């Protein structure tokens, strides 16, 4: 509760700064190429801003779209990503099964999403039937869908070329047993997140020579138990630059930095849930496509 109150307070303070993130703070970055990563997680079918309660007037997909367009208008390369649990949470999902959520994300130009546990809530068929509405791929590297009707409808990874910057994206899903009823996930096989993350991050960074490797994760930010989380994943891998997380609905104002196995820094980002915030991380690359600067933050969306 305290965290949330603190978060709202800080958000309110931030209102005074009118621009989305002031660019004058980086006046000496003109010779660097900028890539802006925008991210959401756990939107849970929240189409409209909240109508009541402490979040009244906050969030909303039409409002988010306006902000995304403004950021695109800045003229930098943009990668727009989601970390899963698009589905379930309002009557829009009960009534239309996720169709509207995917249509709107496509219209906003989402580049990719991973699959959250609630994206199985209408079963594998419920997910597969909605996929034609998404003009972006679902990326997950540690679910084996070979023996399901999802087998040819997802990617293990994808490389994006953003103005000459090679960005490798892979996805990590949470263990389904005990979380999702078996009849909903069917023959989906959950595979070890650390093994798969190491395999795909090495492949993307070393074999394919990606300049930036991003993991879309639905593991959750951290746990008090031994349960695998984004923090654990960051520590036990060696080629991930950024983890865009979800599941635990954790509000991080800016990415948290964790050292990986090679003592290199991994950024972990997550922006709560329901589209209340959109995360923004700016990477600045030099002519050799090396990251020279990183700046991360979060945008709290209010209705006008």
């Amino acid at each position, binding site marked *: 509760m305290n965290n949330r109150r603190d978060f709202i307070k800080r958000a309110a303070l931030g209102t005074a700064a009118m621009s989305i993130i002031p660019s004058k703070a980086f006046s000496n970055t003109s010779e660097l190429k900028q890539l802006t990563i925008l991210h959401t997680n756990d939107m849970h079918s929240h189409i409209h801003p909240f109508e009541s309660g402490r979040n009244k007037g906050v969030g909303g997909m039409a409002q988010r779209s306006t902000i995304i367009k403004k950021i695109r208008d800045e003229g930098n390369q943009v990668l727009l990503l989601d970390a899963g649990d698009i589905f379930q949470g309002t009557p829009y999902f009960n009534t239309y099964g996720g169709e509207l959520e995917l249509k709107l994300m496509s219209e906003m130009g989402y580049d990719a999403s991973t699959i959250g546990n609630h994206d199985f809530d209408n079963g594998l068929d419920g997910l597969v039937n909605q996929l034609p509405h998404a003009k972006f791929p679902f990326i997950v590297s540690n679910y084996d869908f070979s023996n399901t009707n999802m087998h040819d409808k997802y990617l293990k990874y994808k490389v994006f070329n953003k103005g000459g910057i090679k960005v490798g994206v892979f996805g990590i899903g949470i263990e389904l047993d*005990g979380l999702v009823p078996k009849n909903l996930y069917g023959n989906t096989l959950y595979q070890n997140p650390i093994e798969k993350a190491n395999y795909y991050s090495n492949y993307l960074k070393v074999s394919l020579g990606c300049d930036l490797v991003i993991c879309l994760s639905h593991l959750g930010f951290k746990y008090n138990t031994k349960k695998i989380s984004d923090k654990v994943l960051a520590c036990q891998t060696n080629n991930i630059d950024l983890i865009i997380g979800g599941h635990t609905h954790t509000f991080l104002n800016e990415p948290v930095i964790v050292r990986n196995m090679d003592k290199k820094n991994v950024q972990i980002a997550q922006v709560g849930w329901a589209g209340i915030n959109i995360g923004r991380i700016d990477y600045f690359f030099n002519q050799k496509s090396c990251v020279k600067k990183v700046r991360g933050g979060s945008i709290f969306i209010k209705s006008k």
Partner: protein
Amino acid sequence: MKLRLHIIYIVAILLSACSTQLVIKSKQNSIVSVSASPDSLITSIIEPYKIGIDSVMNEVLCVSEIEMTKGRPESLLGNFVTDLCLDQYSYLADICIMNNGGLRSTLPQGEITRGKIYELMPFENELVILELNTLELFDLIEYIFVREGEPFSGLSVYSIDSCMVLSSRDILYRQGDDILISVPVIASSCGGEEEVYIVSEIEETYKIRVLTSDYLANGGDKMSFFNNKNQLKVGLKIRDAIINYCKSEQTISSKLDGRITKYQNE
């Protein structure tokens, strides 16, 4: 209040595969609040879907006297949902348990629409009844304590240091076909099931009928005491149980009643 706009940078020099990398933190601006107008293109895509939703979901079912939120160890919302479910099936079940994580939103004070109940309980989960013996009931109570509270109804539990004590003031047992009698099961458990102490022998044979969701009964949230138990489906979704209750009452409310308490000996 005057906001100081000077920006503090914390610059960390980091090693990367490429070369030196700076992580820039601007303390004042890591979170910014932006007021945005709706994108009219997005609104126009939403509109036909919204019309279909509104016609059904804007129906006012009842009025809530208070705002109800979820939480641990007990909560207004958790007590509300488990109490109303158990009330509807008190002739079939002794206690009810749900999961805090399964309550997906807050119920506001004031008018409660059908849509609000969908947001509270979006899942299609159904109510089922399973029978536990006394030892398994202790596993359930231990689970509640380990999780630092989950919504439940029909019993009071308290712990003293590491001991758990069950007071059954609310448990009714059925004997024969239609006679309900109250049997006090007073038992305690300290540090592990092998030490479970049951006051009288006869009580060990009692079956406690637990109303819960099919999600939890089928292994959701690892409630292992439900493993391999026969399930009686009552034929009602949890959401519909809440909707039925709201429609039958003009106003709804809830209170915290200390059904779960932790005492610590000094």
